[in-house]
């Protein structure tokens, strides 16, 4: 029997893995991969709530998940364009070496 708790545990584990990836990768594209994993875990939570939670209009969770996917796609395109632009300027997208704004 699959319950809400199963979905929550899977999503929480996926979130922590995404956090680990986003924190440890030094390449900007790798950091973006971790962020996408975290967004996916949040979407999994939303869809799980839409399936299991008592609500007057339970489809709202899935609508919200669709909006999150939309915003994530926009965010990914802008972030990758930024990565390419920064690479042209500095020949690197290592986030440890992009310290122009650090005092």
């Amino acid at each position, binding site marked *: 029997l699959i319950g809400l708790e199963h979905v*929550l545990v899977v999503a929480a584990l996926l979130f*922590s893995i995404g956090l680990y990836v986003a924190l440890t990768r030094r390449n900007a*594209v790798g950091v973006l991969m971790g962020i996408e994993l975290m967004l996916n875990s949040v979407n999994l939570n939303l869809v799980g709530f839409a399936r299991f939670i008592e609500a007057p209009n339970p489809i709202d969770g899935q609508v919200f998940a669709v909006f999150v*996917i939309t915003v994530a796609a926009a965010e990914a395109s802008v972030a990758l*364009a930024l990565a390419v*632009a920064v690479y042209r300027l500095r020949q690197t997208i290592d986030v440890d070496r992009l310290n122009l704004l650090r005092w």
Partner: protein
Amino acid sequence: VDQPAVIVAFYVLAILTLGSALMVGLVRDLIHAVLFLILSFVGVAGLYITLSADFVAVVQILIYAGAVSVLMLFAILLTPRSSRDNAGVSYRAPLSVVAGLVGAIVVFVGLQTDWLVSEDERYDETAREIGLALLDPYVLPFEVASVLLVIAMIGAIVLVRPGSEGES
């Protein structure tokens, strides 16, 4: 959704998703990381299907496994030196402790909270319901999302256009 096949599918897909997500963090080559990321996205789409969210699953396959991962592959291939030299990782041990702590707290809170679970079976097909919801209560966010997508597209084109500022 309580048939044994669905339960088995849920566990297999959960293991697939979490395992390939873990491999994203462990492999050194960024191209391999993107391939594992695609596998993880497909696993999440399968989990959506077991949760009877077929429309969101299709959107997930189309946008994440199709578009976003191809964008990432392009970004990696357009920044060749960086993906070869700086593909490594730093501070593995302390940061894995931090991530594990966050995950443990979220699991604890999720299991402790008394959720208002309903037992009724729902959603034979969701595409119609989502369409109605997008056009009746959520028209304004829907339109704002389309404006956001146009702005993101124009911004991405301006940022990487040859001859723009930074191309020196």
